[in-house]
Each structure stands twice: as C-alpha cells, then as structure tokens.
C-alpha cells in the first residue's frame, strides 16, 4: 500500500535487497543461492568477501580472515542471511548423554540438547569428534583445533563446557540491526533441535527460516529444494512476509520445498514462531518434536 499525497510528488521505489553468507563447509549451496540472488540484482554485503564471485568456505587458510568476517557480520544488516556448514550438538559425545532404558534416544537428543551450532571441518575433526563436555582441552585433540570455528544456534553459550569462541554474529547483530526478511540454513538437522528453533524464533520473530530437519549428504540439497519450489521467485525473495502472511502459504511453501528434497521429512521452515514440517504437521516452533 502506497500512502500518497495529492498534488505532491510521491516516489514508489524498490529498496535494494541485500544478503550475506557464512560458509563453513561445502560452498555449493551458498554459491547456487548467491548466483540466483545476484541475477535479481540483489547485493552481497558479506563483510570482506561480498565482492567475490564465489563464497569462500571458512576452513584451512581462510580461518583467520573468516573470524574477522564473522566479527564484522553484525554490522551489515542484510535482508537475507545464509549459513552453511556442519551443524549438530556441541560435541558428538553429547548424543550419548540422552538415553532411554540405557539406549541412545534420538528424540530426547533433539528435544533436550541445549547446545548446538554450525561448525567447520577443523571443529568437526577435533572438538566434535574427540572432545566431551568435561574434557575439551585443545592441546589433547587431534586435527587442528586452533582453526576450529563454532557458531552457536542456541541462546546459551556455555563457556563452562567449551574451550572455543561461540559467538553467533547474527544473534549479536539483532541487538541493533533491522530484522531480516529471512534466513536459510544449509546443514544437517538445523531445525530439528528444539533449543535452536527457540533461539531463531527469539532473535528473528518475523523472518522466514528455511533449513533441514534431517541429515543432508550434499551441499546442494537445500539449493535444489529451493530452486524447485515454484513460490521462490524474485517476488518471494523481495517480500516473503507479504506472501507468507496469507493463509495456507507457509504450508504450501513447505510442501513445495519438500517435493524436491531427497529425504522425505528432510526440510522444514519456521515462520512467525510456527514450525512447518514436510509430513504436513505444523506446530509452535518451541514444541518438542515427536515421531509421527
């Protein structure tokens, strides 16, 4: 709705759409998304790397620059963010903490684990594979723990059980930045953890958040699911809220995304604190998930 004055000149303009990306593993998903957004004329405002034609993964030699990039990320106020990499519980050994009758209980893990996040390969090979909540001394770990990057997706940053920086620049940014239009999460199990869903909803109550609710085997799964969804045209990226605020449109988007996702129950979305799952269920995002 344009509110216009009579007899005065009024300007109706399209605001430039901006995006920023954090890539911690395979760059394929980010590069596909970047390519499409650039084709619409959107602007990559990723600190330090936004002018590059491809999205660098913050691994190996890129880690130091990547840390600088993450620090600057809080200042860019992008309309869209994409975060890609490994995602899971803070330590692989955490999965053993949640059992029922002595056996590992996956449902308890996703509903009760308080600490999860995105991480890069160095973190995966060091802390995630070999550390525990009580023993996370980098000096004892194989791999290159000094290159480890971990970006929490939960509100809690448990210094007492971790030996690495956990700042999520997106969460920090919200203390002053405008709310983004949406966030794409490309990694395993990004929306399956209840504590992560709670954090995303708390920090970004109006954003559409798209991400896997299962493990993914390829860095192109999310990109292909989005590309195959008829709703994800330019108008959607420009103003998803005006589309998703209409009745039934969130469920429709979820349905379209799921059609092109290799795992049946694999991709989910959150909009305005409601979680939409590929099996047709929707529920408050803060609810525990139970097997259907």
């Amino acid at each position, binding site marked *: 709705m344009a509110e216009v004055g*009579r007899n005065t*000149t*009024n300007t109706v303009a*399209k605001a*430039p759409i901006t995006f920023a990306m954090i890539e911690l593993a395979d760059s394929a998903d980010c590069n596909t998304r970047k390519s499409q957004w650039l084709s619409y004329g959107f602007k990559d405002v990723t600190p330090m790397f936004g002018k590059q034609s491809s999205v660098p993964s913050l691994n190996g030699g890129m880690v130091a620059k990547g840390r600088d990039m993450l620090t600057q990320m809080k200042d860019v106020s992008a309309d869209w963010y994409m975060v890609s990499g490994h995602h899971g519980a803070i330590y692989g050994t955490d999965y053993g903490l949640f059992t029922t009758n002595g056996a590992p209980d996956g449902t308890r893990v996703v509903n009760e684990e308080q600490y999860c996040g995105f991480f890069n390969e160095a973190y995966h090979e060091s802390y995630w594979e070999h550390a525990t909540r009580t023993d996370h001394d980098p000096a004892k770990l194989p791999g290159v723990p000094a290159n480890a990057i971990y970006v929490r997706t939960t509100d809690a940053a448990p210094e007492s059980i971790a030996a690495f920086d956990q700042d999520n620049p997106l969460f920090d940014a919200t203390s002053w930045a*405008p*709310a983004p239009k949406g966030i794409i999460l490309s990694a395993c199990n990004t929306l399956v953890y209840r504590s992560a869903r709670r954090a995303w909803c708390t920090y970004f109550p109006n954003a559409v958040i798209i991400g896997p609710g299962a493990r993914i085997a390829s860095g192109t799964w999310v990109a292909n699911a989005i590309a195959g969804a008829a709703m994800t045209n330019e108008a959607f990226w420009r103003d998803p809220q005006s589309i998703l605020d209409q009745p039934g449109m969130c469920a429709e988007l979820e349905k379209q995304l799921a059609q092109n996702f290799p795992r049946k129950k694999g991709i989910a979305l959150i909009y305005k604190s409601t979680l939409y799952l590929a099996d047709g269920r929707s529920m408050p995002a803060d609810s525990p998930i139970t097997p259907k």
Partner: protein
Amino acid sequence: MPNDAEIDGSSGSTNQGPVGQGNYEVQPGDCMASIAHAHGFLWQTLWNLPENAELKRNRQPNVLFPGDCVTIPPVRIRQESSPTDQLAKFQLAGAPCRLKLRFLDDKQEPRSGLAYQLTIDGQTTSGTLDGGGGLDVPISPDASQGSILLNVEPDPETYPLNFGHLDPDSSATGIRGRLNNLGFACASDGDWDADLQSAIKRFQLANDIQPTGQLDDQTRQALIEGHQS
C-alpha cells in the same frame, strides 16, 4: 535519562501533534483540496483565512495530519441570473487535483517507459511512465483509493494507492509512509518504536548514512529528497 531525541527517535525539530483551530478536524485521507471540495470552497480560500494561519505555518496544504483543525466558514450563496431559453455555462474555478507518482527500481533508476493501468474509484486509464519514471494525471479531490498496475514481465506489479494518506514528515506516521513507499518496510501505524528504527537503519545503510536508527537531520533530508515530498 535519554534526551527527547532518543525518546522520539528524531533529533530534528519535530511537531508531533495536531495543529490549527476551527470547526473541522482533519481525518485520514484529507488534504485542503478534498476538504474544500467537500465544503464548496476553493482550497486557497480556506488556506488563506486568517483563522487557518497556524495550520498554514506548520503544514503543506496537501499534507495534513489527522487531528489538525481547519476553520471552514459558512458557504456564501451567490445568485446568478440567466435567460430561461438559453444554455448557461458555469465554469468551476481552480485547478483539478493531481496524482504525481514516480517509480524507481532498486538501483534508484527511473522505471521509464513502463506501461501502466491506473484504477481510481472503478475507472481505469492506461499510459506509459515518462522518462523520469513518472506519471502526472488529474484526479478528483475526493478520490480516496486506487491502484496502479505496472506491466512488468513476467510478473506485473500492483500497488494499491491510498490518496491523501501521506502524513507530514514531522510525524512518525509520515516517516513510516515515506519509508514504506521507498521500499523500507515498516508498519504504517505506530510511534517511534523499534520497528520504525529498523526501517530507518535500512534506509541509512542504503544511503551511506551512519546507521543509527535515529532520524537525524541528514536522514530526514535524504528521506524527503528520496521521496520528493
């Protein structure tokens, strides 16, 4: 304790409340032209009344604020004599109201040459945006709502239009209206709250202004220049 600028989100001089005196309270969608038309006056007649001097000092005739007051005197009846067997022509004095719109793309370039369909009160007209991405067409002073469709391939764009609803730039709703028109979405109603500050920050970032979220003089000026009103 924050200062007033921090409280209201604006560091420039502001005039938040209604102004003026008189027997008519401005409603959303009103401007002097629509008020005068509804009461049988030329808008200049009302605007130049001494009783409306405060309104004139603080407002533009076409951008009033709901709650402003306007003095409207009784209509003077004028009698004209004319022969019964001849056609008598009476010409309404004053110029028609105009709708002036310009459209910019996300690089702030004019969207010139686009075909459009403008619908006002059920009447549809067609045309092409001029070299500046604009159109300038007469409208009835009491036209309240309409829409314009831009024939963009592959997805035509439709913009609903709310005539006369642009509030003064001294008000939060006036700033919201201008930001929304320029693509920096925020709620159309509301005060100087976080939602408005977010939109101001987006506007500041897009215009290379320090993103404070506060409507400082530089930001206000850029906003008015960007909107052209």
